């Protein structure tokens, strides 16, 4: 059944030139990508153009695509960059020099092949991505553990603290617990993170949140 065909199998078929597989991938992802882009542009035609560029960008990057990555997450990251390019082009980011930061955070696999080989930035980027990947695996396990144990209050606190960067006071108010309880969760999690980060072979001094913790 088409709906249970895995993304990886689809990609294999697309690489082998199977147009039907490409159509299936578009059917699977176009709706969510369009919703992502349109929520920002409020212009249906422009949003469809950005989504089209996203799919073309994906095909261009396909030879470099790391098959271990989640396809949906990868497509959204390309869409985000195409959207940023569009916003720059139409003057929504006047504080940025044109083209000054086109490569910011762009998936390495989406960069043209010769640029990857020529760029030492890309090489250090690959090392950085490898370390990020190891940290992500460790964090994913920790978050899954919280969810499995039903520790959703802790998960909510950590998400607001790390993902949104909110101060303890606002996190406490939003989650409906005391600031002290938030501080306790934070302290315990930072301790766990330090261990996980060392186990992942990454220097904890290079992790922004941990370095900030030492300064504060």
């Amino acid at each position: 059944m088409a709906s249970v065909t895995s993304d990886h199998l689809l990609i294999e078929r697309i690489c082998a030139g199977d147009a039907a597989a490409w159509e299936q991938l578009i059917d699977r992802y176009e709706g969510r990508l369009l919703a992502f882009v349109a929520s920002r542009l409020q212009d249906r035609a422009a949003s469809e153009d950005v989504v089209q560029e996203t799919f073309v960008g994906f095909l261009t990057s396909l030879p470099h695509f790391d098959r271990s990555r989640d396809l949906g997450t990868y497509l959204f990251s390309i869409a985000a960059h195409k959207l940023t390019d569009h916003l720059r082009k139409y003057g929504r980011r006047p504080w940025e020099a044109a083209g000054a930061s086109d490569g910011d955070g762009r998936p390495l696999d989406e960069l043209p092949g010769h640029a990857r080989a020529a760029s030492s930035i890309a090489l250090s980027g690959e090392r950085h991505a490898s370390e990020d990947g190891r940290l992500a695996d460790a964090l994913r396990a920790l978050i899954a553990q919280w969810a499995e144990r039903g520790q959703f209050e802790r998960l909510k606190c950590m998400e607001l603290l790390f993902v949104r960067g909110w101060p303890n006071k606002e996190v406490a108010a939003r989650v409906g617990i005391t600031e002290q309880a938030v501080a306790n969760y934070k302290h315990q999690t930072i301790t766990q993170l330090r261990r996980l980060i060392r186990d992942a072979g990454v220097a904890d001094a290079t992790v922004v949140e941990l370095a900030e913790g030492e300064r504060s």
Partner: protein
Amino acid sequence: MIPVSDAELASFMEESLRPDEMARIEAALRESAPLRARLDAVRQARNRGWHSVGAIWRAHRLSCPPRAELGSFLLDALDPDRQDYVRFHTEVVGCRICLANLEDLRGRQAEQAEVTRKRRSRLFQSSVAHVPRPRGARP
């Protein structure tokens, strides 16, 4: 209103905040040189190879519910704790990708409802003649 955090500035660069928050920060950046300087500092930290728990969490979507679970969320079919968490993740954290998935799923459910309605209508039209007539009704 909570001041814009560095994590939110990074999220802004990643296009990962809710659209209303993206617009709020975009407007603030137009007006505030200090905020633009902070945005540059966040960008430079990333370019220098620093890691960020928040950035990794967002990029790898570490707490995003699977799409099937988002579908169940729309049907209010999750355990109460999980239902509450998915609501928090989408409404409070404002995960833009999950919001896009929810909108897509809602659209697909509506399309499916329309397909179902048409199929049942066809079934009704093709079978209604076989419904027994009330006694005394004219043929």
